[in-house]
């Protein structure tokens, strides 16, 4: 029995459909990330699980029980809101106790749960303060604590790290990963940050244009993107796309300048056009290879990103060593690891080497 089972869920606001026939299951103790650009409906899907949005059609089941017609509090879920949503006039202790008091949990049980959550999250020191006296990171811990004490079947996180500064975000991300190991609960995280999704989730659900684009482990999403959108959305800097012509059983791709790559991809169908997808780490500056002109150099320290243009005008991003001496305007040669390449047909569907 799956922990969460979303069946053919559709949601529209007036004439605008935001989610169209979404189906998804999550196993018990699984960490799922909903990843997608702003406005793709990922938060709406989360809020439908929480009961804060109605479901137009379809069903949602948690632990085998249909919950999409229940009140939010009766679904066995706890949510951590983007802006924390702490009750400003209550102390931290009261904030955490509120939900438990409402279901008539005994005083000793409430105290025990708050004590445990406070210990895990290291917020014991300010249990008697009010939210206004805490920093953003501390409020975030309290919001997580308020979810933990409810011992929910599923934790829902709505972009929990987006209000934190870069350093704190990284630390909280790490803590979230540790917390997850300790709590052994099903968790769903909504994020537009691929690094969060890649580092935290067991499986990523990429959502775009009302539909689920792909569901897979982080490395599946990265290594075998189902389509051009997933390939371009996940990975930073994004994947290069070069128009090519394709021939042969083990596809041979030809650039417009005549350069030929033997890929490891087999069994391609017919398609009007093809694009070769290459991650920047598979395009390296070398002594030989495709010639290109450097347009911009980004020195990241441990590596250098080269934004260049091929002779036919196609933009390409390549990697060089950290101590690269290249400058804007230089002519370079790029060696391409065609074995790691992906191909995308005219509809954007992705094809990958068998052993990618």
């Amino acid at each position, binding site marked *: 029995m799956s922990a969460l089972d979303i069946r053919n869920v559709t949601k529209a606001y007036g004439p605008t459909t935001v989610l169209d026939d979404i189906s998804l299951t999550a196993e018990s103790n699984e960490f799922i990330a909903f990843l997608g650009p702003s406005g793709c409906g990922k938060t709406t899907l989360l809020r439908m699980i929480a*009961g*804060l949005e109605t479901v137009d059609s379809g069903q949602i089941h948690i632990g085998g029980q249909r919950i999409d017609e229940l009140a939010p*509090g009766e679904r066995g879920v706890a949510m951590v*809101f983007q802006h924390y949503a*702490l009750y400003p*006039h209550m102390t931290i202790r009261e904030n955490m106790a*509120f939900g438990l008091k409402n279901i008539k949990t005994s005083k000793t049980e409430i105290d025990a749960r708050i004590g445990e959550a406070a210990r895990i999250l290291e917020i014991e020191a300010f249990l008697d303060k009010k939210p206004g006296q805490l920093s953003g990171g501390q409020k975030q811990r309290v919001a997580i604590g308020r979810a933990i004490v409810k011992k929910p079947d599923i934790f829902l996180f709505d972009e929990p790290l987006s209000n934190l500064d870069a350093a704190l975000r990284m630390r909280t991300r790490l803590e979230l990963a540790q917390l997850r190991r300790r709590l052994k609960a099903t968790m769903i995280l909504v994020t537009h940050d691929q690094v969060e999704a890649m580092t935290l989730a067991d499986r990523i659900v990429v959502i775009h244009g009302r539909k689920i684009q792909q569901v897979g482990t982080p490395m599946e999403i990265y290594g075998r993107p189902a389509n051009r959108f997933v390939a371009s959305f996940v990975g930073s800097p994004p994947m290069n796309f070069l128009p090519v012509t394709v021939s042969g059983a083990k596809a041979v791709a030809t650039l417009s300048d005549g350069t030929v790559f033997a890929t490891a991809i087999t069994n391609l169908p017919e398609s009007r056009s093809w694009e070769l997808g290459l991650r920047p780490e598979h395009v390296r500056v070398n002594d030989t290879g495709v010639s290109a002109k450097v347009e911009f150099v980004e020195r990241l320290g441990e590596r250098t990103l080269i934004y260049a243009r091929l002779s036919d005008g196609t933009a390409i991003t390549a990697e060089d060593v950290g101590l690269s001496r290249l400058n804007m305007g230089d002519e370079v040669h790029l060696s391409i690891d065609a074995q790691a390449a992906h191909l995308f047909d005219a509809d954007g569907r992705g094809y990958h080497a068998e052993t990618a």
Partner: protein
Amino acid sequence: MLSAKAKTQLGNFLFVAPYMFVFAWLLVWPLMSGMGLSLFKADLFGGATFVGLENYGRLLSDPVFLQAVGNTFLFVLLCVPPLAIIPLILALLLNRSTRVAAFFRGVFFSSSVLSVTIVTLIWRMVLIPDGGFVANILAVFGLPPIPFFSDPGIVMGSMAIITVWWCLGLPMMLYLSALQQVPQDIYEAAALDNSRWWTTLTRITLPSISRTVVLVVIMQCVLQFQLFGQPQLITQGGPNGASRPIVLFIFEVGFRRWDIGYAAAASQILFAIILLVTLGQYLLTRKRTGDA
């Protein structure tokens, strides 16, 4: 030469000077001269003799004034609680973005824009025992008319009903704007916390708008202690002084009997009452809500 700091301070002062001048001229000066006047036996045609606190002594033993003070407190007690609670209920009901809600917000606010003359005209037609709206309805059920304006035990209640109807628009708007300041996600968190509507109202909504509740109560106290137009226009303070509030007393003494020193002394007492009541409420609520 002025130092740089002194120059800045002078510059700052110049910005507030026009306001300070008008404030001093139109508010501080009349207040002070009123206080001064209360120490004189004076009438409107000149001729003032200093009598010290004699006016205050007379007031405290004047049964008409004491009755007016009692009437005023009764009136405030009768109409401030409804004026704090009814607009809150209306605001809770109308705090939504539907057209119907917008229409009713307009309806309930519309009475506030009427002048006291219109308000009393309307309510005289509603409450008057001789062919009034309420009397007609009672007659349908075979009941006798209620003497809303002629029974000393009822007349202040009638004034309170009229006043609540007239004044509930502004508190409702204040509550509405306060309710709209409460972040929506708190309510969503409460829904996920299994909070029923009564719990949400008492533990989430009311604490979130407590400052506005205090503001409304204090503001209505200040306003309703100054009751004047309604009894002046409907009953002229009758029957038997049962609807004469302090301001009407001041008006009669000052502008009918021209004893303006005595009227000024009564004004000072009203001023002191309002000041004490509002300060008391302020201190009380500040203590209770703590640092919130």
